[in-house]
């Protein structure tokens, strides 16, 4: 059996001249919690749509639960729960009626889970969806996804509109309940603290490109930010050097492994290593996305920043 819940190979999506997703290779293990990070417009939602067959890849391929999305879409959807970014459901239905509607689609549906999460999230089950607060609407979407008994949960910014207590409850549910069932969770977010709290693996996407995919433990253990001063030091990225910032003779390297060895090499080349610090997810994220100077946001189609000489 394929060990990957999600696997993509050079997955790409273009809209006209805009490359919304640019050849990404995702590897999400079964049973793992994977945080898919990126700024607004970085390509997270487009990627998720391709995972679910809502949007067709321009190039590359994607497998979900070991099956090709294009040829086995129904079988994948049977075992995959999804919460969309907008979380818009039928306005005139109550949560109870939405449960009634959704139940019929899934043989693995659990009414016990419905009761449990309705109580936990304090959802008014008899109130029309349109009358619910934004937070409760989000909770209803999550309740439907969690009660499905799915092997894979795909959540597009699931904590939007939730209060801190609800966020905490949700993260607990995802980490404990879904984790216990061996359900893989792929969730997009730009809330780094939440991702750091529960994710085992992270991927950071920017301008449609997957800048990094790694285990969170590896990031904490091995990733280092090295600052050095010297002449003609290495300025190219590599599997070991994730990013390089230069300012005059000062270099700042984001190193993924063997930071001590790399620092020693720099010293041998006459550089003075001034700093070598471990990094958290937040620092790495900022370090990586700040490198992108072309656009004002993570959006692949955003207007380029004009330099002062352009005016």
């Amino acid at each position, binding site marked *: 059996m394929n060990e990957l819940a999600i696997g993509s190979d050079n997955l790409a999506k273009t809209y006209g001249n805009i490359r919304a997703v640019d050849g990404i290779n995702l590897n999400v293990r079964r049973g793992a919690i994977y945080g898919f990070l990126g700024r607004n417009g970085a390509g997270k939602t487009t990627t998720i*749509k391709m995972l*679910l067959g*809502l*949007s*067709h890849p321009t190039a590359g391929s994607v497998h979900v639960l070991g099956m090709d999305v294009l040829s086995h879409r*129904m*079988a994948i*959807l*049977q075992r*995959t729960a*999804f919460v*969309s970014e*907008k979380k*818009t*459901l*039928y*306005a*005139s*239905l109550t949560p109870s*009626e939405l449960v*009634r*509607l*959704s*139940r*019929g*689609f*899934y043989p693995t549906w659990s009414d016990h889970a419905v009761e449990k999460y309705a109580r936990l999230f304090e959802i008014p089950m008899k109130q029309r969806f349109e009358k619910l607060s934004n937070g409760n609407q989000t909770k209803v979407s999550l309740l439907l996804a969690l009660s499905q008994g799915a092997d894979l949960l795909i959540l597009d910014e699931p904590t939007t509109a939730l209060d801190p207590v609800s966020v905490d409850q949700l993260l607990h549910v995802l980490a404990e309940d879904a984790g216990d069932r061996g359900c893989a969770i792929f969730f997009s977010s730009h809330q780094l603290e939440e991702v750091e709290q529960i994710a085992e693996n992270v991927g950071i996407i920017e301008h449609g490109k997957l800048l990094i995919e790694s285990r969170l433990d590896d990031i904490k253990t091995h990733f280092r930010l090295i600052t050095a001063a010297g002449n003609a030091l290495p300025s190219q990225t590599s599997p070991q050097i994730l990013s390089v910032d230069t300012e005059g003779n000062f270099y700042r390297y984001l190193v993924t492994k063997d930071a001590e060895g790399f620092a020693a090499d720099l010293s041998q080349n006459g550089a003075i290593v001034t700093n070598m610090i471990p990094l958290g997810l937040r620092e790495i994220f900022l370090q990586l996305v700040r490198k992108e100077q072309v656009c004002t946001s993570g959006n692949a189609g955003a207007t380029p920043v004009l330099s002062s000489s352009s005016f």
Partner: protein
Amino acid sequence: MYFWKCWRDTRSLFFILLIIAAVIMPVAAVVCVGTGLLEEFGLSAGLSMFGLLGMIAALGLGVLGASEEFAEKTVQFLFTKPRTRAYFVWAGWAVGCIELLLIALVNLLVGWVTLSRYTANPFHSTLFGSVTAQQIVDNIVGGLILFLFVYCLTYALTALLRNGLKGLGASMGIVFGLPFFAVVTRWRWKIDVPIPANHIGTLPVMISNVIWILVALLFVFAAQLVVERSEI
């Protein structure tokens, strides 16, 4: 369960139209007792009411059946359920179609019973004169095919445009604009444009009817093909 959802979306309009369909002829008959109007105009009034009510039901159910299902915002929820998009298109269509037929049949049955009860000869009216049962059946079949045509067109356009008002507007534009267009093409270029549910050229009535039914279903099939290929 999905059929239940479709039924739930349309049941209010269905019940309102069903009640109107069931009471309008009896109420009119009771009001007109002793005036002689029923004997004079009963059949033509009954068939006119049938046509008007059927058109309203076809347009209303066509819009309601598809507008929420394929609205921009809820379509992600719907199309990530483990069913084909064709299933959703045809399930919504089927529920509305059954409701439309029920409304039409109830209106016909109650109308016929009313005319039989309150008039000496239900086959006679001032407008139509004396008509045969075959002529009445042809009128009714023609009406039902027209309703189906309008319903399918409205449903398909609403699904494609993902908006109830736009779907209704486009459908009404076609349905009410087509006769004018046909008149213009005949007057200007001597070309006969077939009008829905009317005879096509010199074809037998049965063949014309089958063709109009297939054209109506073709709208839904076209909507299905577009919905299946659309990016969400």
